[in-house]
């Protein structure tokens, strides 16, 4: 990764523990100006905790946080130049939408005409002008989240923090608002940090994704990189649905030996000079070719169909190869019967190899 010259947010050796429990461990992260970064991980990985540390809502145990070139480790949340959007919206129930939007500005003693101008602008961007006089209780979930975004917007800050903002919405609204957030980012060009456990949100929104596990960042890279070159087995498993298939075996002189036979790894881009040893070979369901196409692939297997899930656009099929279960994503038009033997093929260029002990990419 290239060194970022003037990072918008820079986290240096951050530690956070609650008593004996270490939540974040020596965490380092540099985020470029105007970048959309998604913190992704399963619950309890420390992603929300990290966001709260950046916001200043949690005191760190050690390390520094810099925002826009200023060390804000000891600053109050309101002094950090951030706006934050929460999962539960967290709108002030007894204030109107306008009151909610202006609360922060009134606290900061911004002049009245300035407040009015900013509210007007934010309301226009988010299309909440007709709602300004209403109380939050009279709004739908989507409208509430828009107001919550507006509250961050009027603060006119460099950095936006989103803490799972779409998790309380239904699927349709989530998809709509996801697009809107992306458009908002393109329009404003602010730095945004977005916490989610939803890989689709992460892949669609992010410039870069930081995948977290147990308070560590496992990989911090673009969605393309994360999907195509996962740094370790956890990242490979976490991204992609259905999850990546793994074959246990060993790498030996550019070949992969397993119970399914010996296959050439020609075309695989090794990251280590000496990859020989026990390894996992991973292959995504969507990279497995079936039918006539399978014949053109360098690595070929044959599997018995066990289970079929037609999704319309695709058909997910679980097959047994040897004694291994694998998911294969087939064309939606494919007709397969349970018990049928089908040819499967893939190429080493789309495969992933991980060391069995360290689980790092080979």
């Amino acid at each position, binding site marked *: 990764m290239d060194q970022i010259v003037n990072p918008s947010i820079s986290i240096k050796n951050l530690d956070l523990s609650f008593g004996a429990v270490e939540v974040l461990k020596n965490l380092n992260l540099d985020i470029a100006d105007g970048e959309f970064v998604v913190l992704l991980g399963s619950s309890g990985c420390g992603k929300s905790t990290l966001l*709260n540390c950046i*916001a*200043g*809502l949690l005191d760190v145990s050690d390390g520094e946080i810099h925002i826009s070139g200023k060390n804000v480790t000891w600053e*109050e*949340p*309101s*002094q950090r130049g*951030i*706006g*934050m959007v*929460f*999962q*539960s*919206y*967290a*709108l*002030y*129930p*007894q*204030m109107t939408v306008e009151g909610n939007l202006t*609360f*922060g500005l009134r*606290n*900061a003693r911004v002049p009245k005409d300035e407040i009015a101008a900013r509210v007007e602008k934010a309301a226009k961007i988010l299309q909440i002008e007709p709602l300004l006089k209403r*109380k*939050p*209780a009279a709004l739908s979930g989507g409208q*509430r989240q828009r107001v*919550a975004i507006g*509250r961050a917007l009027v*603060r006119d800050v460099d950095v936006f923090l989103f*803490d799972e903002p779409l998790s*309380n919405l239904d699927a349709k609204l989530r998809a709509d608002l996801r697009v809107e957030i992306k458009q908002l980012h393109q329009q404003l060009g602010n730095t945004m940090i977005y916490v989610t456990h939803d890989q689709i949100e992460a892949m669609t929104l992010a410039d870069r994704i930081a995948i977290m596990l147990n308070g560590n960042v496992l990989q911090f890279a673009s969605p393309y990189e994360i999907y195509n070159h996962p740094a370790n087995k956890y990242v490979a498993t976490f991204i992609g649905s259905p999850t990546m298939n793994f074959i246990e075996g060993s790498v030996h002189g550019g070949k992969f030996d397993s119970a399914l036979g010996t296959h050439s790894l020609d075309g695989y881009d090794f990251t280590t000079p000496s990859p020989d040893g026990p390894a996992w070979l991973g292959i995504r369901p969507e990279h497995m070719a079936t039918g006539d196409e399978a014949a053109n692939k360098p690595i070929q297997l044959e599997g018995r169909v066990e289970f079929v899930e037609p999704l319309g656009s695709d058909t997910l099929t679980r097959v047994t190869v040897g004694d291994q279960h694998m998911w294969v994503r087939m064309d939606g038009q494919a007709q397969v019967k349970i018990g049928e033997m089908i040819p499967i093929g893939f190429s080493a260029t789309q495969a992933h190899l991980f060391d069995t002990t360290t689980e790092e990419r080979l």
Partner: protein
Amino acid sequence: MSTATQSPAKTPRGPKPKRAFSPANIMIYGTLFVVSIYYLLPLYVMVMTSLKDMTEVRMGNIFSPPVEITFEPWVKAWAEACTGINCDGLSRGFWNSVRILIPSVVVSIAVASVSGYALSFWRFKGSELFFNILIVGAFIPYQIMLYPIVIILRELGVYGTLTGLVMVHTIFGMPILTLLFRNYFASVPEELFKAARVDGAGFWGIYVQIMLPMSLPIFVVAIILQVTGIWNDFLFGVVFTKPDIYPMTVQLNNIVNSVQGVKEYNVNMAATLLTGMVPLVIYFVSGKLFVRGIAAGAVKG
């Protein structure tokens, strides 16, 4: 066809018919009836007796309504009944109680709501310990603390004054009120508090602008608790004040239990009803407010 129209109950369709005299109904209404009689009958006797004159009272028909309604006993109880050397009736005690009640309620609720808010949002080192000590305080019998408090008040120079009694009521209201407010604020989503902090509101800003407006119901509950508790207090009133500033309850006791002359049952009944009026009014007034408060505060995220 004809049978269906004649007895629609036979074809199961639409809402299930309910029996008026089901065992559950008989139990519920039967119990309610017995309990209301139990509480309302003495009240009825008191009201009736207080409206009779003494000759009628002496006839002993306590359940019969007055032949001739008189408000004389009420006037006497309020303005003329004697306790000790004062013969200005319960009115003196009433105003004493008001002067005790208002500052005690206001101060105790103000302090407890802020400390409850601090204990749920601004945890400090040892805040849990502090809270536990406070709760343990609620379980220590008052009698144990009477004498030490007398000494403390004497040393502070407020023994036998209204100020002293107000201080005692405020402090003794703390445990239960703090618990009440802390638990209420603990149910407020933490993200709301975080959002307010990001918006630059401080300790008092969040309390006044965010928390207060959404806690009307719990304030009403606290007011009901404190007003009835302090108004009905007898022990602290009799121990920490002097005859001139006795609260209404103590004065009522002195009127009812005075041994000289004839026992004026009608005056006693009127005096008791007058004393009980304040908590009663509070229940009626705030009951309505309470429901409205809950409705206004019902904003789930």
